[in-house]
């Protein structure tokens, strides 16, 4: 009985050294995670400043399809605000025009991402439904892009926004393959992955994303999706909501109202 109790005591020797070295490895790796709350806060203040606490937010966007008139101002605002490259077709947000004929034939267009508006071709055919759908990064709560990034250059912030560290990304483009929504592209100059950030530089200062601010019909609604009262929570309450490619279980935080089944 006594022998058994002594078993776990440290004994010198090679085998024991290896054993203890291996056992102490996980705690050593976990050390960075063991920062005190105070230290964490200091680091956060360094990044966000004192007036913004990312854990108090959970950002999302609502899009009311029936309100979109396809003017393309959101696309233009985004291009200008975020220096999105012009050529050939790079977009952090874009607008798709759908026209569905009585025969069930679906025509989808997005010339220049809809930046300069659309030609009205609803009179050409026997169109029964026509509408515009703004698209952007869905800021998924279970983001496949973050999962596949080999170096962790793309990550989810505490307030739920998916960002890319341009100084860290190696440009392997696995995230672009993994995104079901075509929301990512490789920046031609920096050669790293890029996408919509919900205008992160603006929202941490209490401003709206550029596309939301530019929309003349308030088809885009931005705000917190949980907790306190916000325009988005009101939007989620007042409308029947759907998300894109729901079956992929990515849990998007871009919510659509009045979405047609043809939109993918």
């Amino acid at each position, binding site marked *: 009985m006594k022998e058994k109790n002594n078993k776990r005591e440290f004994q010198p020797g090679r085998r024991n050294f290896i054993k203890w070295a291996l056992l102490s490895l996980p705690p050593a790796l976990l050390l960075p995670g063991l920062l005190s709350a105070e230290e964490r806060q200091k680091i956060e203040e360094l990044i966000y400043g004192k007036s913004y606490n990312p854990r108090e937010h959970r950002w999302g966007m609502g899009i009311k399809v029936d309100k979109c008139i396809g003017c393309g101002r959101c696309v233009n605002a985004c291009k200008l605000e975020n220096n999105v490259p012009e050529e*050939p*077709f*790079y*977009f952090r947000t*874009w607008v*798709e025009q759908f026209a569905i004929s009585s025969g069930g034939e*679906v*025509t*989808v*267009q*997005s010339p220049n*991402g809809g930046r300069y508006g659309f030609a009205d071709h609803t009179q050409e055919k026997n169109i029964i439904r026509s509408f515009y759908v703004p*698209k952007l990064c869905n800021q998924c709560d279970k983001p*496949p892009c*973050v*999962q*596949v*990034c*080999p*170096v*962790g*250059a793309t990550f989810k912030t505490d307030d739920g926004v998916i960002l890319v560290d341009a100084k*860290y*990304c*190696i*440009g*392997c*483009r*696995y995230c*672009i*393959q*993994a*995104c*079901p*929504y*075509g*929301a*990512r*592209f*490789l920046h031609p100059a*920096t*050669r*790293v*992955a890029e996408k919509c950030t919900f205008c992160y530089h603006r929202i941490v200062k209490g401003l709206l994303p550029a596309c939301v601010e530019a929309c003349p019909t308030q088809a885009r609604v931005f705000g917190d999706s949980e907790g306190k009262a916000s325009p988005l929570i009101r939007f989620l309450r007042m409308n029947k909501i759907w998300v894109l490619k729901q079956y*992929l279980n990515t849990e998007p935080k871009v919510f659509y109202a009045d979405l047609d089944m043809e939109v*993918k």
Partner: protein
Amino acid sequence: MKGVIGFIYPNEIELHWGLLIVIYPYITGLVAGAFILASLERVFNVKEVQPTYRLALLTALAFLIAAPLPLLAHLGRPERFYEILMTPNVQSAMAMFGFVYAWYLMAVLLLEIWFDYRRDLIIWAQESKGLKKWIYKAIALFSSDVSEQAIQFDKKAVKTITIIGIPSAFLLHGYVGFIFGSVKANPWWSSVLMPIVFLFSAIVSGIALVLIIYMVSTLLRGKELDMPCLDKLASFLFYAMIIDFSLEALDFIQRIYESEESIHILSNLISERLFVSLIIVQLLLGMLVPLFAIASVKMFNLPAELRKYTYLISALLVEVGIFTTRWNIVIGGQLFSKSFRGLTAYKMTVGGIEGLLASSVLLLLPFLILYLLIKILPPWEGEKST
């Protein structure tokens, strides 16, 4: 918007994984396949394929050395590649590449080759003079024990490493399949069978490659081909192809039978974009013709001379077939829009790092490495001259 049919998302105008990412799984597949062939002799005691044992090991090593190069070359920021090793994201299939690769190179291939060649290296060191003597001594890590006991230990070590090596080879290439098979956004890739299909097509391509290299190198050196060995290689090639074909057929039937949302765009993909590379080259020339050819020369027991050349041509066709398999997966998977409403096109360039020339160089490089390895570590033993 040239070459686009229907609607694609605006950002999809650029195709992201080009020729370099086609040759990456092709090369790693050849590594895994060649190694599994080598292990047949050691673990499963298939004595007939003994003449190709060392050749297969060196082939695996040569291709493994070249394997990371296409990956590296395709990165947008290749100078940051080391981040994959320094701060890997453990959730990412791709981040594991460095570790799987290092394990396979260090713990399996180099060790096995070293133990297998150790006795010969000591003897070569004794027989040579000057610099060569020291090179062999250094490769043997200055070991000098050629006693019966030491040789027995070498043999045991090789066997143990091979036993560890088989699952490692499965891991190496199965993992490459997982990189594609786990992308749920892409219905052409997303399949649980992907790692297994990759693995068996790897075995097929590896056996075919060693068969080609064995035949060509033996003929070039004016030696006599070991016919029982060739027959056995062809048999294994045949069995591996049957399994590979069945798996791919199963995947195909399952997709058609389930007939999910993506079925329309995928059938458009095949008829509009992949007809030649998938139906004609991969299926007909790369699979059915060699299967039929090998089966018929064996069944009718045709003369050795005819069998030889049938094997060679079949193996060459198989190589082309497996290459187009990789092409159809990697490029094919990016030719349709994730909106499932349109097709795009791949415009291959000749020059540039992503171009045809660079990829051809990367494909030829392993053969050059193999040539050097054979010069340093001759894999031939006990052959007859013609």
